[in-house]
């Protein structure tokens, strides 16, 4: 952390982190319980709660956009969104189009690594999100209460 802040690297290609701080965080959500859940207009789920906490830390107001995974990831690739959640895993074919974070949850039963997606080339933002996720990362089987939801 000391090395990073002293050099100020990496920087974003489009200044996402600076724009989001104290501003709006454009979040794409596709329904994928237990990671994300859209019920009667209410947004909930493990990953959406993570993103809400991330936004609070940045003093940002989350602006939610609901949609299908492919539609949202395409918008993310075009940098119309800042972050997309929806039970994405690291082996997704979208890997080359958007930037996946390091896993926030590794499922020991299936071996799948669950990630969030941020827009590509926004590396200061990516590093910020990964550092936010790092202490919250979990390994194990799906939490029982989440699976039941």
């Amino acid at each position, binding site marked *: 952390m000391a*090395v*990073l802040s002293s050099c100020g*690297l990496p920087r974003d290609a489009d200044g996402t982190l600076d724009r989001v701080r104290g501003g709006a965080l454009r979040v794409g959500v596709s329904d994928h319980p237990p990671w994300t859940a859209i019920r009667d207009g209410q947004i909930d789920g493990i990953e959406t709660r993570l993103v809400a906490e991330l936004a609070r830390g940045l003093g940002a107001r989350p602006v939610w956009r609901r949609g299908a995974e492919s539609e949202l990831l395409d918008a993310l690739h075009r940098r119309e969104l800042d972050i997309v959640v929806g039970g994405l895993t690291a082996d997704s074919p979208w890997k*080359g189009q958007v930037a996946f974070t390091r896993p926030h949850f590794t499922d020991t039963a299936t071996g799948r690594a669950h990630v969030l997606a941020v827009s590509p*080339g926004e590396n200061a933002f990516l590093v910020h999100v990964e550092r936010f996720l790092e202490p919250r990362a979990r390994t194990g089987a799906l939490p029982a209460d989440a699976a039941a939801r």
Partner: protein
Amino acid sequence: MRIGRRFQFPPEQQELRRKTARLSWLSLVLLTSTAVAVYLTLGQSEAMKTAWIEDLLGLIPPVALLVALKVENREPTERFPYGYFRAIAIAFLVISAVLLLVGAWLLLDSVMKLVEGARAPVGTMTVFGRSIWSGWAMIAALAYCVGVGILLGRLKQPVAARLNDRALAADADMNKAGWMSEGAAILGIVLIGYGQWWGDAAAAAFISLNIVRDGWVNLRQVVTDLMDESPTKLGETELESLPSRMRDAAERLPWVEKAAVRLRESGHVIAGEVFVVPRVERDLVANVEAASESLCALDWRIYSVTVMPVSRLDGAKLPRH
């Protein structure tokens, strides 16, 4: 006279050949370590991917050299009465074709990425329990590659020069092109760090151009070899004066009226024919045998010289091109 004898390298060259083998083994060890270092930090950077492939391709010439050192000096056989000197040329033909194709493919790939405006995500990684920006790890791995490339190039160049070994010279050249590419990749990563996303694909394009260049240089070298080019100095296209010196030496023999010489370079060795118009035909067989012996002694690289008596020589000089 014995046909199909084994070529004897002079003691100094034998020592240099052992040194070539040691340098090739050293290359394999060091280049494997750099390939592992780059692989561990690879990420989604185009420049890193290209540098990694170049690193892997750099493993081929030392392997080819080691094989050639073993094979080329095999005893000629009934099936291959001219010996195995060409084995290395065939290996290099394949390698240079692969370099050209892979380089062209990587160039296309990186130019496409540049046109598409593909932005490489470079996040964090954990090193010794601390999470750092992966870019720093990539730069460290690449810096190690640069060091290895400079070291190997420096060690090989003088040996190649003294052994007049084009394959080793080409290998040293590849090490040099390699560390320059890795330097470009470092620049690419630094540019990503500053949010200049195009730096990554631009560095990758530069590295691919280097690979294409390696392929082209090697291909030209090996094609001249397979085309029986007259001996040339290492790293130069100018023909050596050896054929004319050999002709003069033949014409200085008291029994020779006129002589014409044709030499070709196969790998490390030189072979060819000397056509002579005899002044006197007494003791012709003994004279021819003695001449063949003495002309072979003009240069250590000469493997065999066939002396052929003829009644006359037409068209004394071949055109330059």
